[in-house]
């Protein structure tokens, strides 16, 4: 069930894959397949330590890179509609499961409500990833996420179009 306090559009990332939705679904929901892609780069090793694919179920993922201490993620599944929609709350945690900040991205919110939606298309699958920070003030941060979506779409890597960018924020 979506958080009732989180209203406006979250951040969105669309991507197409040349594979049918049921196969893409399996890469998200089968631990052996997830471990083969869910990592920042191929030098990292991902291991699924726990996996309960049901509402309220938990997945724990460990990621190792060289000699560095491993990092962990927890997913708490909220909504599962095979093979179309998967929603979960996601956190970086320590080995004991306590949420921690990401040392590489210190401003990363501790918990993200994350959703993937898979849609069949002629060339395979259109996947939509949406996320919104799920914090103590979800309404404030979700409101910004709507503005942030405009920020991201309008940003051209410089301050040249700041006026048009902020105009989009006013209209949005």
């Amino acid at each position: 069930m979506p958080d009732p306090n989180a209203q406006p559009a979250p951040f969105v990332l669309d991507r197409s894959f040349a594979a049918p939705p049921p196969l893409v679904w399996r890469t998200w929901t089968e631990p052996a397949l997830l471990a083969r892609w869910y990592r920042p780069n191929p030098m990292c090793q991902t291991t699924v330590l726990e996996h309960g694919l049901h509402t309220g179920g938990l997945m724990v993922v460990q990621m190792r890179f060289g000699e560095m201490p491993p990092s962990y993620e927890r997913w708490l599944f909220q909504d599962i509609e095979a093979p179309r929609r998967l929603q979960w709350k996601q956190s970086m945690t320590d080995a004991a499961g306590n949420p921690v900040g990401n040392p590489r991205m210190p401003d990363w919110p501790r918990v993200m409500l994350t959703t993937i939606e898979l849609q069949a298309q002629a060339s395979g699958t259109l996947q939509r990833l949406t996320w919104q920070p799920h914090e103590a003030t979800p309404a404030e941060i979700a409101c910004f996420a709507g503005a942030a979506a405009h920020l991201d779409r309008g940003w051209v890597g410089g301050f040249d179009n700041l006026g048009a960018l902020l105009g989009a924020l006013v209209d949005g």
Partner: protein
Amino acid sequence: MLRPPPPPATQLDAVFAALADPTRRAILARLVEGDASVGELAAPFAMSQPAVSKHLKVLERAGLVARGVDGARRPTRLRPEALAAATTWLDAYRALWDARFAQLDALLHDLAHEPGPETDDA
């Protein structure tokens, strides 16, 4: 050119909270056109100057604007570098997902060519 270090978590939260309000976003849009006094900012909203000042305090705490000390006028100036910091955070997060999906793409190609039950797309 070296990028500035990322702002502390609390500062970025202040930016998010500041931008969550449509009136404050409109104030920022007006400041893109140039510095403005409190009276000039209040006029389009039919809002009292104290009400606008409250919004300006939120924007100032977030580092999004700077306010002059020039007597009663206290012109307000936009600080676009603060907005840049917020978008840098978003860009980094999206880049992380892009990197993961590049590997997902490669895995899906491998699965299409691997022998055995994993290639069944039942």
